[in-house]
């Protein structure tokens, strides 16, 4: 069979299996192996499969993923998210929509120790939503803020999606992390602006809270000093080139654990739960990577990525239009699929195209994380919305799914504004990594 046609058939079979609820990782591994067997030889496929899976599992570069996930889990079980929220509240609580702004800020700050978007959304739901409901915030604003703010955890380093992107495209993970910082802060500001606009248009959706004195504000900062030190150590160590990402993550784990134990904030049960949750998530991520690697080998044999890059490069369209089309595909894909799975499926296809157009690989990594972040809050799949909905059923029953989807609209506009800004000013992404050694 013609390699291109078998590639297309293989991709369609894989998508069909996914639609029948076969886990994405399994479907990629199956079609990748079967396709490779068909195009090269069954023997070659049977020898490729264990080698690729083993080298993914035993990769030192990828070992940073479970460690960063563990750092976030330990921070969560030690109540870091709650303290971050309280501090942000002291500073912003008295303005209209201030609790929502505090939630968004706390999401970014928690994202600095946690690399996953649904985990950040789930964590901040339990912290932020009860408070916002207590002050009479509308359901749409309260839940929409948490669902969208969770996405900030994905772009603020450490970020699991950026690590995976870095490994797939052979980019430095440290530089990708640095590239994510300014866009994450920019997006936080845009989210705060969106909340302010919403509360100006309908003041009853986000009433003012109590004003805290400056003394209280600075005291609350004291509770955060340890988190700040750990973050500075982890990110600063990578920035200065002192640590590899795996070392930085291990130092982060030790730092969070040490501080939590000394301050008696982490129980034995919390520690065990953090380990188990980390194992489940890491296993899921690593299987996805292994599946994507095997599928990628098949795709490379079909030559589809290279042919496609050639076709796109030959189009009589400006680069930005092609790029916008690619981002449109990411957005649509993100509506149906988890961001990590989507990045793994599509990066091998689009990366050569993007490089051919002359875009910077770091910039593209950050932008697709932003685009898939829109996907995690848009229907029909919008994983963060479901996570928040699931959490509210326990903590604030009565919030309808529709009002959460309604609440994310202003944040979607803010993300679109953010992406446009990054298009116009790519230096916002490239400036910090450019300062590295």
């Amino acid at each position: 069979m013609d390699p291109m046609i078998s590639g297309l058939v293989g991709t369609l079979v894989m998508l069909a299996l996914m639609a029948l609820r076969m886990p994405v990782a399994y479907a990629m591994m199956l079609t990748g192996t079967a396709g490779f067997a068909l195009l090269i030889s069954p023997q070659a496929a049977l020898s490729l499969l264990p080698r690729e899976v083993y080298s993914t599992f035993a990769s030192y570069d990828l070992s940073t993923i479970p460690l960063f996930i563990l750092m976030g889990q330990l921070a969560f079980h030690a109540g870091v998210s709650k303290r971050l929220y309280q501090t942000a509240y002291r500073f912003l609580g008295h303005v209209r929509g201030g609790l929502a702004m505090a939630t968004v800020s706390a999401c970014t700050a928690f994202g600095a120790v946690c690399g996953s978007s649904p985990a950040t959304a789930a964590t901040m739901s339990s912290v932020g939503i009860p408070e916002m409901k207590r002050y009479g915030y509308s359901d749409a604003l309260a839940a929409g803020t948490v669902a969208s703010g969770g996405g900030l955890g994905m772009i603020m380093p450490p970020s699991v999606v950026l690590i995976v992107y870095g490994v797939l495209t052979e980019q430095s993970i440290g530089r990708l992390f640095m590239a994510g910082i300014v866009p994450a802060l920019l997006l936080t500001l845009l989210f705060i602006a969106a909340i302010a606009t919403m509360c100006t248009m309908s003041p009853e959706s986000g009433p003012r809270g109590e004003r805290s004195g400056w003394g209280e504000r600075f005291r609350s900062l004291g509770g955060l000093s340890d988190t700040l030190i750990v973050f500075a150590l982890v990110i600063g160590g990578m920035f200065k080139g002192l640590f590899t990402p795996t070392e930085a993550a291990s130092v982060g784990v030790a730092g969070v654990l040490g501080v939590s134990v000394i301050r008696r904030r982490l129980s034995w049960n919390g520690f065990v739960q953090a380990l188990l949750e980390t194992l489940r998530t890491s296993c899921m991520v690593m299987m996805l990577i292994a599946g994507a690697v095997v599928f990628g080998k098949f795709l490379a044999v079909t030559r589809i990525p290279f042919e496609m890059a050639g076709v796109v490069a030959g189009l009589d369209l400006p680069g930005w239009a092609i790029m916008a089309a690619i981002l449109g595909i990411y957005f649509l894909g993100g509506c149906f699929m988890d961001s990590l799975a989507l990045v793994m499926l599509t990066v091998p296809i689009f990366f050569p195209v993007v490089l051919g157009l002359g875009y910077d690989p770091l910039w593209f990594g950050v932008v697709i994380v932003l685009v898939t972040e829109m996907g995690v809050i848009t229907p029909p799949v919008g994983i963060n919305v479901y996570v928040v909905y699931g959490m509210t059923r326990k903590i604030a029953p009565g919030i309808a799914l529709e009002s959460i989807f309604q609440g994310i609209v202003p944040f979607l506009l803010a993300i679109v504004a953010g992406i446009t800004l990054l298009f116009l000013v790519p230096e916002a992404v490239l400036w910090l990594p450019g300062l590295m050694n």
Partner: protein
Amino acid sequence: MNAPASTLSVIERAMRALAACCLAGMALVTVIDVTGRAFGYPLFGSEEITAFMAALAVAMSLPYAHRERSHIAVELFYTRLGRKARLTASLLTNTLSFAVFATLGWRMLDFALDTRDSGEVSMNLGMPEWIVMAAVAAGVAVFALMILTSLLRLITGSEAV
């Protein structure tokens, strides 16, 4: 059906505990290396040990992650199907999943034995890496057996779709 299933469950828990130890071990070994390096005594081969422990942590948590349904799947279309169609789809995808992971387990063991026979050892510490590969094969095998158990439950109707 029950006795094998409960044996599998015991094995799954043991593997989970081992995976948790490896996860904590990865952080510990790396921190010892970083601290030692600051004082001029780096831990030789720490990267290799970390990578091996990462492989074990992931492979040993495969059965656990399957039990907890941690793997990402697209629910959107499946949930719109009728009961019969869902059962057919689940039978198909579980059979295919079992096939792919049974094959992976078998090939991984073969890969481990080939590596042992060729006398290949790890680059820095000269450790027999085939043992790690064989342990990964064991994790994959238990994982495949758990998929088989789910499949049998679907066939006997003891697992709802």
